[in-house]
């Protein structure tokens, strides 16, 4: 049989809380350490134990990281989803199932192999049988796919760090799985194989939330306040975990305070208190948390307090699908809180940017004296992604316009906390404890000296200055990444975790309709003028988003000059799962057909 090497998708159906995550990560790390481009997606339930979980492993020499159109190898362990998992298999799928579940698999059009996984695992250890049975499928796959046993050994050792007995037991289970296939299955009838590839051995796997957490430390974060919420909790927990190693002085005293707040409102208030006092403070949350924080977000905007909030987007609205992904919070973040507001948003698309924007968010917040959002999502934040390494900040911290001495204050003619003395919309500030020109900060209307005011002309001038301040930032916030074709016919605008699907979308369009498209990856809001130029330069522009309504498309429609609006189109789609190239390539084809291109 003709072999299919490094180009297929595995789907592993288990129940959560059964230890399957360890088995799946071992598979991921083994393949990754063989130099094979691979991505793993954990589709987990909002539950502690017993509900269905799927793990999708995409192996692709072309580097595709999003889930594919179809599954090639289906592992079935979970009784609860048994029938659906089997029904979803397309003809030709290799189905590996746990025979001991004693459920039928009636698919003549597939390659079906039953393995008595539970029985084999119980033979090793009766008590831990259920957990170890997951390692049996690792062994089964290792034998069929010809995984490198040394790499597999290393992955197991890493996963069960230092626990000799666990390592031994899991290795035995793998060996049993291998032996079963060796004795009972002619693997020549199965086409799928993994082959070693040369890969830069500086590349490693990391989760986006951990990358942001580390980046925040290298931004000198002094206060983390948080309230647990999926999928952001692992960001806060990673940040906390690194404090003993990289954020203590010679006495072991901490340089970063951590408060698990009573709710998201309090977390936001603490961030603002920290920013007001002169430190770099942040919180991490998800959509429901942002909704609760909205009043404080307006205070940070209006009183001009540097603050950082990371939104790890999950599927909304309301409680929504708490363990699924989306880009559904973008428009809310951009204008969060009542009245006229605008907040800068940093949108990383890979692990290096997660780290970079982790520290940069503070520079931007302090420079603008405003609240800055980091915008990630569950897919980027909680799945493992390849990373070339984290780069140390290339600039000293930008602390913004803070006056720390009387001489600095005296050097400014006609100082006022909210007076635009430099003409860039950004005033100077002094800190509590400095004794320098103290004022009572407030969320009420205020004049240039910070004194309460309800005067129409004072309010209007203040609001226009705040707008000017944000508009000026368009040219120096992280600029879009462009990949432009010579023939500038079709341009695609996208952002964030869509980065992981874009290459495949691009290839589908070229393969199937012979179209080469330019790409513009937006990395911040408010939008750079480069985005407008990109739109101007192309005949048709399509905005790809993981939401229902086309939220960036909506922002573009409002901010673009009228004459450009007719050529901008939306390709928005969201079902809770990570973006699949096929959905978007079809939407793009639809738009192109509609406009006659």
């Amino acid at each position: 049989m003709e072999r299919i090497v490094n180009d297929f998708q595995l789907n592993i159906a288990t129940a959560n809380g059964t230890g399957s995550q360890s088995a799946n990560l071992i598979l991921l790390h083994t393949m990754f350490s063989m130099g094979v481009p691979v991505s793993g997606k954990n589709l987990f339930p909002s539950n502690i134990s017993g509900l269905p979980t799927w793990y999708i492993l995409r192996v692709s020499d072309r580097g595709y990281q999003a889930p594919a159109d179809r599954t090639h190898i289906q592992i079935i362990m979970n009784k609860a989803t048994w029938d659906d998992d089997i029904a979803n298999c397309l003809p030709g799928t290799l189905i590996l199932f746990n025979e001991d579940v004693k459920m039928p698999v009636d698919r003549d059009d597939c390659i079906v192999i039953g393995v008595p996984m539970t029985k084999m695992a119980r033979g090793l250890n009766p008590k831990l049988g259920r957990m170890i049975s997951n390692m049996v499928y690792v062994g089964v796959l290792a034998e069929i796919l010809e995984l490198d046993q040394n790499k597999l050994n290393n992955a197991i050792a890493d996963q069960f760090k230092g626990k000799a007995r666990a390592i031994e037991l899991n290795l035995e289970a793998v060996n049993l799985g291998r032996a079963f296939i060796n004795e009972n299955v002619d693997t020549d009838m199965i086409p799928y194989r993994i082959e070693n590839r040369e890969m830069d051995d500086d590349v490693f796997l990391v989760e986006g939330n951990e990358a942001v957490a580390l980046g925040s430390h290298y931004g000198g974060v002094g206060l983390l306040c948080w309230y647990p919420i999926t999928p952001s909790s692992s960001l806060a927990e990673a940040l906390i975990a690194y404090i003993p190693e990289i954020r203590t002085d010679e006495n072991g005293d901490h340089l970063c305070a951590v408060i698990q707040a009573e709710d998201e409102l309090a977390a936001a208030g603490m961030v603002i208190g920290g920013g007001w006092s002169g430190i770099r403070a942040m919180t991490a949350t998800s959509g429901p948390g942002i909704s609760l924080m909205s009043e404080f977000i307006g205070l940070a905007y209006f009183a001009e307090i540097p603050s950082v909030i990371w939104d790890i987007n999950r599927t909304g609205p309301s409680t929504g699908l708490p363990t699924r992904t989306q880009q559904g919070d973008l428009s809310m973040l951009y204008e969060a809180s009542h009245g006229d507001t605008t907040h800068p948003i940093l949108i990383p698309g890979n692990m290096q940017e997660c780290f970079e924007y982790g520290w940069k968010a503070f520079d931007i917040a302090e420079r603008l004296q405003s609240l800055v959002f980091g915008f990630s999502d569950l897919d980027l934040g909680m799945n493992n992604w390849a990373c070339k390494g984290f780069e140390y900040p290339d600039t000293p911290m930008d602390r913004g316009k803070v006056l720390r001495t009387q001489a600095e204050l005296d050097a400014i003619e006609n100082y006022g906390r909210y007076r635009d003395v430099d003409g860039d919309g950004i005033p100077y500030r002094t800190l509590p404890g400095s004794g320098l020109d103290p004022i009572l900060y407030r969320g009420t209307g205020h004049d240039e000296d910070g004194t309460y005011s309800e005067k129409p002309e004072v309010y209007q001038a203040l609001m226009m200055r705040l707008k000017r301040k944000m508009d000026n930032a368009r040219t120096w916030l992280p600029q879009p990444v462009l990949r432009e074709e010579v023939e500038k016919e079709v341009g695609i605008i996208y952002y964030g975790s869509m980065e992981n699907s874009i290459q495949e979308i691009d290839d589908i369009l070229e393969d199937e309709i012979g179209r080469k498209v330019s790409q513009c990856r937006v990395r911040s809001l408010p939008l750079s003028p480069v985005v407008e130029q990109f739109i101007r330069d192309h005949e048709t522009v399509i905005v790809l988003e993981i939401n229902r309504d086309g939220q960036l498309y909506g922002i573009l429609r409002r901010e673009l000059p009228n004459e450009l609006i007719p050529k901008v189109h939306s390709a928005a789609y969201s079902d809770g799962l990570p973006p699949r190239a096929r959905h978007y390539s079809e939407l793009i084809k639809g738009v192109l057909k509609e406009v006659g291109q």
Partner: protein
Amino acid sequence: MSIKLNVIDLPKDDYTGGKSTLCPGCGHDQISTVIINSAWENGLKPEMVAKMSGIGCSSKTPAYFLSKSHGFNTVHGRMPSVTTGAAMGNRDLTFIAVSGDGDSASIGIGQFIHAVRRNLDMVYVLENNGVYGLTKGQYSATAVKGSKKKKGDINKHQPIDLCKLAVNLGCTFVARSFSGSKKQLTALMKAAMSHKGFALIDVISPCVTFNNNDESLRSYTYVKDNDLELHAYDYIPTYTPIEGIEIPEGEFHDITLFDGSVLRLETIGSDHDPTDAVAAMAALHQAEIDNKHVTGLLYFDSNKSTAIEDQCLVDTPLADVPDEVMRPSAASLEILNTRFRGKD
């Protein structure tokens, strides 16, 4: 005539604020005066004080005292969280916070509770009048059952007593006072400023516009006639030799505060032990049954660690730590990158 200076050689003018815009005769203005006098007499450095408040009549008052201190008039009911964040940033600041009964007993009761729970080092002055003034006189959650404000029906709901709540939560300094009792309030205010930890002073402060009528249990006349004082108080600052203080004729005992100053409790009537939480609850409960207002230091505990102490932070306020110390070294990142790559 020479201007009188305090222990750090500052005139009282350095502790005053802007002109009040509250109703003439408002109890809150008397409290502001007590804050000014106490801060001046205690010799607090104005620049090291941070004035915090939420929203409401009471929360406007930080504009009327200590104009040489930074302040933050935050959002409704959320002052405790902003104060918590600021305390983490600058542990050397003295936080003097003003809140009201709407702010603390309704919209912000959760934040009040959690600030107490963390024993955040702050003076929390609750200006308690039982009504919402700025929105024109609705009952608040501390309004006494059976009380009647100037316009409207008798209040049918039982009150939330924030002193009871605070004692139950293990608050380290719980006092109740009356805006008309200047001597008692001043001694308690000074003691609260000298305390390490969360110091609550629930000050009954009659609303002259909406809740000062004869049927109200929060009117000046009613509170004055029904004030059960636990002790008479003398505050003895650190800079006054204790030998120079006149010994009271009756029984007394002293409480030593964190900064070394002393609050002297002189027995009047039954002797309340402020280290006894059960006695504090009993006194509050009995006063409620009798429609009285029990005032004085209800509860005191000097042994609990504060929110800042629990953090194990460096001694220098984080806001003053140099950037190059706050940002970890390039070498540390190299170690992490190497570990991620499995090459360590």
